């Protein structure tokens, strides 16, 4: 039978943990509300931006807008070097949030390795960066405190290297991996190919319905500038979406932890009462048998 004092200490320690997890849950709930609002406001813009870009890409693919040969819009058959940018949280204690992203990155890495493609891994967020460093996977570069505090300017600076290198032909594709917000309970893992713009879903037949004209005398300049904004925004949106998802994941993880702690305290209490009862019984027996022996 466990010592009464030991059980008491255990109960105290578990309830303290419970207090911490409950506080963390509350903090995450408050932060989630803010970041969710931010992500929600940008969602519409992101969706429309994707739509516009996809339509242009589709039209270029179907040769409706003649004579445009932009690297960002043409499929590259045999990529030699690709960039993978992943976004994880800076902090743990948020369930499978980070590991899901890491797993997706690992899968993508393995796929490219099989094809003998060189991968430049660029990381945002301490957890993911630490994981790959520990596993001795080479990182091209890493930023640590950007994912917890998304900042448009820093995100732009970070992504600029990839955009420039893509346009210069140093890399042949750009992937973005992050865990996004779906609702309070679920996160949505996004593995997107940002560059070249994916036009595979666009049906050429649809193009026939309407004529699109790209105004501006120099199309190249317009597309260049549009693609820059598109990729920059995709990066920024990934960051804010990831923050919202991180808080929702943490809120959930902490909720589960609080409940588990509650269950544990309950079962420990039962154990404590049993032990206490056993101790009383033993003591009584000792007294009674002592009295008996005196007779």
């Amino acid at each position, binding site marked *: 039978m466990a010592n009464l004092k030991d059980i008491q200490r255990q109960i105290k320690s578990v309830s303290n943990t419970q207090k911490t997890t409950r506080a963390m849950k509350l903090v995450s709930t408050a932060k989630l509300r803010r970041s969710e609002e931010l992500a929600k*406001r*940008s969602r*519409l*813009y992101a969706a*429309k*931006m994707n739509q*516009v870009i996809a*339509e*242009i890409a589709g039209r270029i693919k179907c040769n409706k807008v003649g004579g445009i040969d932009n690297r960002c819009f043409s499929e590259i058959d045999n990529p030699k070097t690709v960039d993978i940018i992943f976004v994880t949280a800076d902090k743990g204690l948020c369930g499978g949030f980070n590991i899901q992203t890491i797993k997706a990155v690992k899968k993508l890495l393995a796929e490219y390795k099989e094809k003998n493609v060189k991968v430049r891994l660029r990381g945002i967020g301490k957890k993911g960066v630490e994981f790959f460093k520990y596993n001795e996977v080479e990182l091209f570069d890493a930023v640590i405190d950007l994912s917890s505090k998304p900042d448009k300017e820093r995100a732009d600076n970070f992504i600029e290297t990839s955009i420039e290198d893509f346009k210069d032909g140093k890399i042949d594709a750009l992937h973005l991996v992050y865990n996004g917000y779906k609702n309070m309970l679920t996160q949505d893992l996004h593995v997107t190919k940002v560059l070249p713009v994916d036009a595979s879903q666009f049906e050429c037949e649809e193009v026939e319905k*309407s*004529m*699109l*004209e*790209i*105004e*501006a*005398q120099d199309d190249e300049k*317009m597309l260049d*500038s*549009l693609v820059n*904004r598109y990729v920059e*925004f995709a990066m*920024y949106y990934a960051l804010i979406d990831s923050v919202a998802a991180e808080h929702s994941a943490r809120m959930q993880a902490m909720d589960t932890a609080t409940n588990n702690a509650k269950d544990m305290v309950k079962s420990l209490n039962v154990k404590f009462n049993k032990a206490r009862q056993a101790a009383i019984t033993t003591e009584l027996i000792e007294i009674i048998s002592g009295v008996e022996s005196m007779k």
Partner: protein
Amino acid sequence: MQMLKLEILTPNGEIYNGSALSVTLPGEEGEFGVLAEHSSLCTLLEAGVIDIEKEDKSIESILINWGVVQVDEEKVIVLVEGAVAIRGENESEIAHALEEAKELIESIKDNSPAIAAVSAKIESAAQNLI
């Protein structure tokens, strides 16, 4: 007159969503107006003012710093990076919007003569409202 559907979106949310008689946009190659059933086009916008002519013929001005517009037969979608609508219930609200607009103009880095014209334009738009 036929109305067109107009959506103006910024990364921070919608700034206009509704119908309009016509809309004038500050294109890279110069200002252009769009009426309902305009042919499809896609072009970049530079810093300037979007003038929306509403159903009651009143004009609403929105200042933008960069944007892209997609026009098709049904609707006009304008994606802008930063925008300030010059509107308000009373004078102080309009003055506030005007101040915000001036801040946005200042944040635009290049100092082309067009920017000065934009600044004059929003002032007159605000004057008209008061």
